[in-house]
């Protein structure tokens, strides 16, 4: 898959007009992480609703098209889902969401940063600790 495919219209659109970008006034979950190697930076805030569901979610941060689009798409996907759903989320889900782009190992980290932050926040809220299995080394 060529870069022209990776950066297809949809990704660019989410990069330039991110959905659910910003901060929540009231929130129950607030997580944040940086990729120290490239400086990409994502924050996620969630208001938890009835039945432990994701009532409201917003993300903020800066970074490349892939990290920003991935985080933004993920917030759309997550909205309304139960928190437990986040636990089952896998990197394959993210790749599918992005249209299975062919990314090298460092760009994969960009694609997965949003998921990592979402998991960190939700696991923390549920009283667990999230350890990123792909954290090198």
């Amino acid at each position, binding site marked *: 898959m*060529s*870069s*022209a495919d*990776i*950066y297809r219209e949809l990704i*660019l659109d989410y990069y*330039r007009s991110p959905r659910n970008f910003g901060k929540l006034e009231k929130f129950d979950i607030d997580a944040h992480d940086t990729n120290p*190697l*490239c*400086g*990409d930076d994502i924050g996620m805030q969630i208001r938890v609703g009835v039945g432990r569901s994701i009532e409201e979610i917003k993300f903020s941060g*800066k*970074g*490349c*098209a*892939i990290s920003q689009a991935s985080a933004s798409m993920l917030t759309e996907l997550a909205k309304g889902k139960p928190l437990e759903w986040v636990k089952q989320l896998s990197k394959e889900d993210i790749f599918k969401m992005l249209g299975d782009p062919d*990314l*090298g190992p460092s*760009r994969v980290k*960009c694609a997965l940063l949003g998921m990592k932050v979402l998991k960190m926040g939700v696991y923390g809220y549920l009283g667990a600790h999230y350890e990123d299995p792909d954290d090198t080394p």
Partner: protein
Amino acid sequence: MLKTEAIDVQKLRADFPILKRKVHGKRLVYLDSAATAQKPQAVIDALVDYYSRYNSNVHRSVHTLGEEATEAYEEARAKAARFVGSSPKGLVFVRGTTEATNLVKFAWGEKNVKKGDVLVTTLMEHHSNIVPWQLLAKEKGATLKFAGLLPDGTIDMADFEKLLKESPRLVAFAHCSNVLGTINDVHAMCAKARASGATTLVDGAQSVPHMPVDVGAIGADFYAYSGHKMLGPTGIGALVAKKELLEDMDPFQGGGEMIREVFLDHATWNDVPYKFEAGTVNIADAIGLGAAIDYLNAIGMEKVREHEVRLLKYALETLSKAKGFHSYGPSDPQKRGGVVSFNLGDVHPHDLATILDEEGIAIRSGHHCAQPLMRWLNVAATSRASFHVYNSYDDVDALKAGLDKAGSIFRL
């Protein structure tokens, strides 16, 4: 066009085996030499020869291999010293520039910096010339201050001189910026800093690989450089200083080689520079660095510099025609090293790097270990193309085509 007026690049490329490699089916266009340079066969051969013929620990064994290894290691030291106009007794082999600045922090700083002292660096520095001084300042209750920059990316000399009025203990700055390319007037800066009573440290990571350097003429107390950025192996670099200054310093790491005698309750130190080379040294890579220096000397550092000025000039002209291209640093190629940092519209540098990689083009993207400078530039990251002797106009043309492609993908 594979010749600049200074170097016949076509001929020289044959010396670099990696340049035969294809990336995504395309010719490798390596424009990331400021991060680390590629190695000529002569350097690789020096390593192979060492390990295949006379590998041995140095300064320890009186057998033939030991004597040959010691001789080669010390010859490499002499080369590494001469290359920057210094003498072997004033050259400590370290892992690279970062270990050099840290050595100064530990062995000079801990002894000489006191509470209330001022340390001065600049806003264009690499983290390796910031973080050690932050740590030192914190430990000692000293203050680290940053000389500001002018809009063209040169050091604000009025600000620099104002800071010198505070009689700083240490003044540390880069010879050449790894982001802006700015070549600082290190002669004048050292003279002024020394007149204010300060000890000076010059970070030569981006100068020694690319231009003639004479530490004595510059008048720096400490001068640091990395082998891997000058066609040498990873894991080796140098801290250069006057012998007397080194003698005055406390040791850094303790262990074998750096001692003269060890008793249960104390130890005495070996002569400099050995006093600062604790443990088994990186013998092979020091010898490899010597081979890199031979290679560069055979080309001539004046020529290397002229070559890069030509390329830089061509690059600034050519790339500025790409849609959305915006570059940082002084506009006069004579005043900067072979480094072009830029952004392309709202294309994030990492996305740009991915698109270029598909064309076989390797550039660096990110904060370049210079976050304070990124903040001053008001950007999160930049893209950076950087040159060495194996680059030519064709690489610039390839980059230009890559930028055009990125511009079209991102609909700039």
